[in-house]
């Protein structure tokens, strides 16, 4: 084997090494992108699912199919805090009762502590609970990291906490943020939704 052959082999090994590095880097990027993009998609879907449910429930605050069972809709909000709300409504139960069964129900939304989800890598995520009447609290970890509600009276003035007279609530501002529960390299994707003024129609009936 001549000197030139050794040079050829060393050169080939060098180029091969570079190619291998490029391929490894490419593979790493591909894996990272799959994780990040899939996570992003899941986060966006989770946010929309959460908002869909919240909007549907909140718009029906004070609604009852049999109006005589809820004669004063302005008193439908039973509890109003920054991270929770409890209100009266009539939950639809399709296909039997698509517009509600005429019996007044209670819905209670609240968030749990971040420490309750210490098993997930994201330190900020917490459970968003939805309790109907006296049922067991239902929730799924959708990566909610913010569930803030701001309340306004009929004049549009912001109400300060604690709200001792929940019937003074006329509109509310809901801010929801959803993040990945776990992420590649701890780079969590964030999606934000702010419903500036959610005005349930029945709350205006006063």
């Amino acid at each position, binding site marked *: 084997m001549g000197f030139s052959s050794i040079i050829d082999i060393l050169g080939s090994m060098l180029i091969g090494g570079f*190619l291998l590095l490029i391929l490894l880097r490419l593979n790493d*990027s591909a894996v990272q*992108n799959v994780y990040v993009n899939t996570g992003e998609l899941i986060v966006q879907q989770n946010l929309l699912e959460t908002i869909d449910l919240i*909007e549907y429930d909140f718009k029906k605050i004070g609604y009852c199919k049999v109006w005589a069972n809820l004669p004063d809709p302005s008193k439908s909000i039973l509890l109003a805090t920054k991270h929770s709300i409890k209100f009266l409504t009539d939950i639809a139960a399709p296909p039997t009762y698509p517009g509600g069964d005429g019996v007044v129900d209670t819905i209670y939304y609240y968030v749990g502590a971040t420490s309750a989800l210490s098993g997930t890598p994201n330190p900020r995520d917490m459970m968003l609970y939805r309790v109907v009447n006296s049922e067991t609290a239902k929730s799924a970890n959708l990566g909610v990291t913010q569930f803030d509600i701001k309340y306004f009276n009929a004049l549009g003035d912001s109400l300060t906490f604690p709200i001792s007279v929940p019937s003074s609530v006329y509109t509310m501002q809901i801010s929801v943020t959803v993040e990945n529960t776990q992420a590649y390299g701890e780079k969590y994707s964030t999606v934000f*939704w702010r419903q*500036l*003024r959610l*005005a349930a129609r029945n709350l205006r*009936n006063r």
Partner: protein
Amino acid sequence: MTIGAMFLLAVTVLNVNKNFNTTTEILNDSKIRILAVSVATSMLEEASSKSFDEQTDTAAVASISSLTAVSSLGLDGSENSSNHRTLNDFDDYNAYKTTPILDSISILKDCPKIVFKIFCKVDYVSSSSPSVVSTTRTWHKKMQIKVTSSAMGTDTIKMNTIYSYWYFR
């Protein structure tokens, strides 16, 4: 031959990176559009929380001729578009423009704050053809909202809602 192989590899790597960037861009665009939809629905909700008409703000109206004339839809009297709290009825939002600073939050790590522009239009519509603007007064008003942003390029989010008048006798 080696140079050819290197060239092929370079092209492949470039294409893969291009695809990664496209996917990321699409997901970020979708994120901004979600926020734009929330801005639009917020405006719809805000307008829907007001009275149906200037004349129905403090009293009930039984005749359609008592409502605001088609040509007068928009601000009345001392109402000021720069202070939305002075707007007291649904059609005050006709030709209303705003740039919600409150919603201009940074949701992308390497992106400055996003500023949205909102334009509203309110018209009377009839119950039989709600998509057609009515030239006469009716019990139904339709609001069209357009949300644009430099972050969304030339894309525009458009949403509509119809607000009808009703009251308890």
